């Protein structure tokens, strides 16, 4: 057997042997090599010592109310109205990272950006509107507009536009 310290995959061989992940035949072969190779023996002994030292770092037991707290949070989210639920999901971000999340939003962001750019061009190239913003728009109309916007977000969420690019569970 070639000395692992002098081959490309040596690190993996030493790691697998010391963590007992090596298949038995290969481990037996490596054990024979270690018996003859001082350098490998030193590495294996030092790594075994580290391995044993790490064993002393035991994890503490989980709090007894862990599940109760979690279910309370889940129940609280489930009890929210659909649009609020969608909003919570939106503001709390994705399961893994914002980079993926933003990536999922790329088509929507791109469309929105294009739309905004088009609107800006039209604003510049067309004469100003003769009619100013309707001052008679009351509170009720404003509320309706906001509700429509939230419904749109909810609808997008329900049809899976937000998550369809990278479904949960994919890496």
């Amino acid at each position, binding site marked *: 057997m070639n000395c692992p310290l002098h081959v490309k995959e040596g*690190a*993996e061989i*030493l*790691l697998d042997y*010391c*963590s007992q992940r090596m298949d038995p035949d290969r481990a037996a072969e490596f054990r024979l090599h270690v018996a003859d190779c001082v350098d490998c023996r030193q*590495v294996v*002994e*030092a*790594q075994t*010592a*580290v*391995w*044993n*030292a*790490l064993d*002393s*770092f*035991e*994890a*503490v*037991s*989980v*709090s007894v109310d*862990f*599940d109760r*707290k*979690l279910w309370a*949070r*889940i129940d609280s*989210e489930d009890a929210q109205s659909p649009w609020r639920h969608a909003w919570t*999901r939106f503001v*709390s971000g*994705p*399961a*893994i*990272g914002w980079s993926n999340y933003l990536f999922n939003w790329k088509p929507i962001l791109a469309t929105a950006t294009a739309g905004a750019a088009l609107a800006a061009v039209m604003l510049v190239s067309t004469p100003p509107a003769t009619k100013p913003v309707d001052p008679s728009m009351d509170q009720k109309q404003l509320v309706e507009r906001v509700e429509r916007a939230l419904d749109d977000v909810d609808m997008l969420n329900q049809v*899976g536009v937000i*998550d*369809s690019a990278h*479904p*949960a*569970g*994919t*890496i």
Partner: protein
Amino acid sequence: MEAVGALERDAELMLRVRAGDTASFAQLLEKHRGPVVHFLFRMVQNQSVAEELAQEVFLRVYRSRETYEPTAKFTTWLFRIATHLALNQIRDRKHEKNQENLDEETSEGMTRQVADRGLTVEQSMVRDARLGEVRSAIASLPDKQRAAVMMHKYEELEYSQIAKALACSESAVKSLLFRAYETLRGRLAHLA
């Protein structure tokens, strides 16, 4: 991609959760609660923070149920979320530079581990000192190396799973692990 042939048990449960079966989520929680909390505890070395992060991990899994697709091992996905949260927390804490809670929790954690064993005072002190050195050596590792060691040594994940959890290649994981263990050998050699 892993586990695309025979659907693993966890993935089956998660698909049931997607269909609205909360009892299956309870089963997943029962099975993975310990490993996730333990992993996070060793990463952040603070039990209350670890449990808070673990809650967030399971909450994110539950929130994502409607869009879940079993294209990777459930454990890999779970530890990817946990790793992401742990690394963010460590980064935030570094910015805060507030070690007060860590010190308190460190002492508490040690006391708990010793209390169960019925050791003499002297044995407890030796064990505390040894454990302190191990924790300190782990804490001194760069974040990704630390996460790789925790998943390799304690959670016994495969290289491919660790790679996916850390969003890097398998060869990068092996390199991270080798460097991490090399550092630990240097710091903990005297404990042999």
